[in-house]
């Protein structure tokens, strides 16, 4: 598979950026249920890594899943509809923002709880000889969860094809990494004999290269690997709950992955992509807003009462 073009990378990042901005803009209008965890600032991670997915590869995501889902190829309209509680939503309105299931994409809002699932999925794929790999996203905050370390141990012991993508955005909700994390992130993976790659960049091209190398290594060896991406979210943890120093945010905004990458495009191409993305966003939210709300009649049952 060839690498995506610069224009395509920009389009994917812009789709995520504008989707998330639209969600934040429109949240006060009462159009969405619950809350949201936006991915603004981290777009290059999902786009750079997931550009290398092959059909059937598995993505395991977390509470901050919109960017992962869109980069995976998920429908913007179905995601908007899910946030709005529409029957056309990705999960029919049952899951909401953090619980997104489509094809081989699985998201759950319980931090760390998904990591052993990713290991089990990779185990199943290896047994089946499918050649598929599992990409499991987690954040720095998730490193506080004990089950992560059980899972890293299992992944290394069983030698299963899973890539742990650790997006370090320096904050677990409101708490900075200095108050949350002892030791090193890299050392945590290395302790289990898991090969680590790391990037101190928000440049999608660099992440793209590392993503390719990491996924190829996992696919080739059928063993786990880790990719640590130093990043930053410009938006609040969820919405309106930001206590970070505005100067700090402004400083990181100078490394905005979209700006870095947009500089590589001709003005006309950039403008055209942005126009097309705006049109897509508008159509997605408009359609979702007109879709029928999820109905209690479709509540169904969580299981077969009798098997």
């Amino acid at each position: 598979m060839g690498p995506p073009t610069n224009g395509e990378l920009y389009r994917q990042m812009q789709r995520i950026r504008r989707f998330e901005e639209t969600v934040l803009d429109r949240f006060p209008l009462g159009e969405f249920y619950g809350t949201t965890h936006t991915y603004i600032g981290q777009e290059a991670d999902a786009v750079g890594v997931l550009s290398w997915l092959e059909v059937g590869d598995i993505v395991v995501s977390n509470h901050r899943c919109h960017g992962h889902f869109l980069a995976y190829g998920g429908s913007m309209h179905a995601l908007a509809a899910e946030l709005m509680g529409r029957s056309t939503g990705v999960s029919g309105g049952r899951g909401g923002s953090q619980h997104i299931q489509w094809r081989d994409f699985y998201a759950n809002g319980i931090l760390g709880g998904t990591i052993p699932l990713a290991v089990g999925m990779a185990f199943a794929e290896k047994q089946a000889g499918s050649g598929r790999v599992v990409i499991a996203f987690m954040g720095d905050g998730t490193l506080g969860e004990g089950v992560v370390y059980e899972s890293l141990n299992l992944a290394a012991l069983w030698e299963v094809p899973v890539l742990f993508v650790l997006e370090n955005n320096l904050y677990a909700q409101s708490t900075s990494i200095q108050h949350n994390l002892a030791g090193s992130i890299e050392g945590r993976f290395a302790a289990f004999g898991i090969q680590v790659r790391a990037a101190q960049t928000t440049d999608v091209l660099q992440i793209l290269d590392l993503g390719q190398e990491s996924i190829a290594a996992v696919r080739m060896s059928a063993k786990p690997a880790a990719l640590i991406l130093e990043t930053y979210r410009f938006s609040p943890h969820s919405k309106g709950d930001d206590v970070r120093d505005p100067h700090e945010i402004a400083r990181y905004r100078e490394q905005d992955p979209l700006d870095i990458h947009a500089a590589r495009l001709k003005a006309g191409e950039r403008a055209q992509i942005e126009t097309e993305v705006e049109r897509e966003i508008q159509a997605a939210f408009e359609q979702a807003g007109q879709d029928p709300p999820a109905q209690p009649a479709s509540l169904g049952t969580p299981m077969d009462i009798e098997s």
Partner: protein
Amino acid sequence: MNTVLEGLNEGLRACLRSSEQVYLLGEDLLDPYGGAFKVTRGLSTEFPARVLGTPVSEAGIVGAGIGMALRGLRPIVEIMFGDFLMLAGDQLLNHASKFRWMSNDQVRVPLVVRTPMGGRRGYGPTHSQSLEKHFLGMPGLRTVAINTLTSPGDLLQHAVLEDDDPVLLVEHKLLYPQKWGVDGGEFELSLSEGSYPASRLRIRSAPQASLTIAAYGYMAELAKQALLELAYEHEIFAELFVPTQLSPFLEQAWLASVSGTKRLLTVEESGLDLGWGAECVARMQEALGADLRARRVAAMQLPVPAAGELEQAVLPQVEGIVAAALSLMQ
């Protein structure tokens, strides 16, 4: 007749034989050890690639089992002691039981978690509990308790091979050495319809039952003794109702027994407060109205002690069941 342990061991072997998708994982399962209670003895020798001894990581291995189940395998995870199940509680609550429904039925989680529960072995507060009460009523999780009246191997095989929802299989550890099956002696048995049938046990040729004693797992063994004592010493004829599927609650099978007797005594080994018996009594009360009289026998609201006499005092005994039945029938 086989023991329950042999039945489970043969059931596991049959599952592993019948489908390449079946994997068995847990701590210390491998031969020559063969599991802390020896339920898995011989299986790692026969199926070395599909029986996995795991690290001491209950959440990790249940989570891995969920991942396997989501991707087409039919895993069985053994938790060495039921007391350790809470370590995997999040996996059962927020993952195994949720994925099907919250994905709008796009995926299934055909996972079986088996674990020994219960006391009477002097293991003390953290190795003797009957913690299934905390998992009952969880939407999306089936909880099944084995007993000596229904084939443990058949229940297990159905759960592993046929049931596409997650199942928590509760095995009271005192059941392992017991023979299972009714040998045509003093009891007669009828089973409800369904893959996880409830048993109704009566003394052969006894008059119509005036009382239903409901118990699951090992408590059914105690209740069986109480049934005989009530009949022969007090001329009270009771029917023993033994569900295998505890959750979701299967009301029809209960009503088949309780609507006839209108007297219900529940027996459980976990603590009385806010427990299984309370739910069963409430269900029957709602269905039968003021006609129902009921009582519950359960453990004291204490940790399970180690010392024999203390443990005996805390956990339900045959005498307590008989006394409660007599009081109910006054």
